[in-house]
C-alpha cells in the first residue's frame, strides 16, 4: 500500500490535504512551524500534530508493484 498523507485530520475531519505542501516548503525555508500552522488556520492540536508528524513514503513505495 502506498502511504500518501491523510486528506483529512484523523480526529476532527478538517481538510489537511492541501496544506502539507505549503507547510513543508515554509518550514524548510526556516520559518517556525508554530507560525506556519497558525497561518494555515489550524487551531486544534489534532490537526497540528498531523502536519508535524506525518511522513510521506510515496516516493520510496511508488517503484514497487502492488
Amino acid at each position, binding site marked *: 500500500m*502506498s502511504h500518501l498523507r491523510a*486528506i483529512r485530520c484523523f480526529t476532527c*475531519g478538517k*481538510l489537511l490535504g492541501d496544506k502539507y505542501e505549503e507547510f513543508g516548503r515554509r518550514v524548510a525555508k526556516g520559518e517556525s512551524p508554530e507560525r506556519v500552522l497558525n497561518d494555515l488556520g489550524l487551531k486544534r492540536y489534532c490537526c497540528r500534530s498531523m502536519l508535524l508528524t506525518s511522513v510521506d513514503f510515496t516516493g520510496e*513505495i*511508488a517503484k*514497487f508493484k502492488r
Partner: protein
Amino acid sequence: MELEIRKLVGDEMEFVLSGANPAFANALRRAMLREVPIMAIDEVEFLVNDSAMYDEILAHQLALVPLRTPDGYLLRDECGCKEGSCPRCSVSLTLKREGPATVLSGDLKSSDNEVVPVSGSIPLVRLDEGQRLEFTAIARLGFGREHAKWQPGIVAYKYVPTFELDERACDACGACVKRCPRNILELSDGKLKVVDVEKCIMCNACVEACPREAIRIGHHEDKFIFRIESTGALPSEQILLKALDALEGKCKEFIKQVKKL
C-alpha cells in the same frame, strides 16, 4: 430565543445562542453534523490503475475530497432512477493521468462545473514513470449519519463561562493569574480582573490555586457559543439553515403521526 452572529468569515461562523437549553443546542449541533446533505464521491470504477495504491485505498482517498454542493440535486432515494445514478441525482468525475506525476484533486474533471473539489491542490496519489491511472467516479448526495465524508463540517458549542469573585476574600496575591492556562486573569491596581471570560475553559485551575477560596467558576444555563467550520462543501450559514429545515421536517412528520392517533 436569540441569535447573535459574532463572526462569518469564509468557511467559519460563530454565533451565540441564548434563551435556549442544552437539549435544543445539542439537537441543533447534531442536525448540522448528520442531517445536511452534501456531495461526496460514493462509487469509483477503475479502468486502469498502475499506481502503488490499491483501488480501494484510492477510492477512499477520493471520497474524502470535499466537493462544492449546489442546490438542486436529488437524493438517490428521492430520484428513484433505475440506474441508481442519473444527472438529476449524481455527478461523474473522471480522471486520466500518466506518470511521472502527482495526481491532484484539481485533475478531476466534473460533469457539473459547480460540483468540484473545494481545493484543487489535494494530492491523491503519485504515479511513477509509465504508470497510468484512469477512472470514473460517481458523486452523490448523502448524510453525515451515514458516513463522515458526507459531514458538511465541524460543529461544536460550548457554554458561556462565568467567573465569580468574592472581593472581600481576595487579597490579590496573584496565584490564580500565574496558574490560568489561557492567561485571561490579570492584576491591575491591586485588583483581580478577568480579561475575556469567554476564553475560559472552565478548568478550575484558578479555583485550586486560590488559597482563600475566593473564586467560583460556573456557566450560563441558557447561553451557548456555537462554532461552525465548513469543509467548503456548503457556506457555513447554509449548514445552519439546512439543519433547521431538517429539524422542521422531522417535527412536521411527528405532528402528522400524532394527529393520526
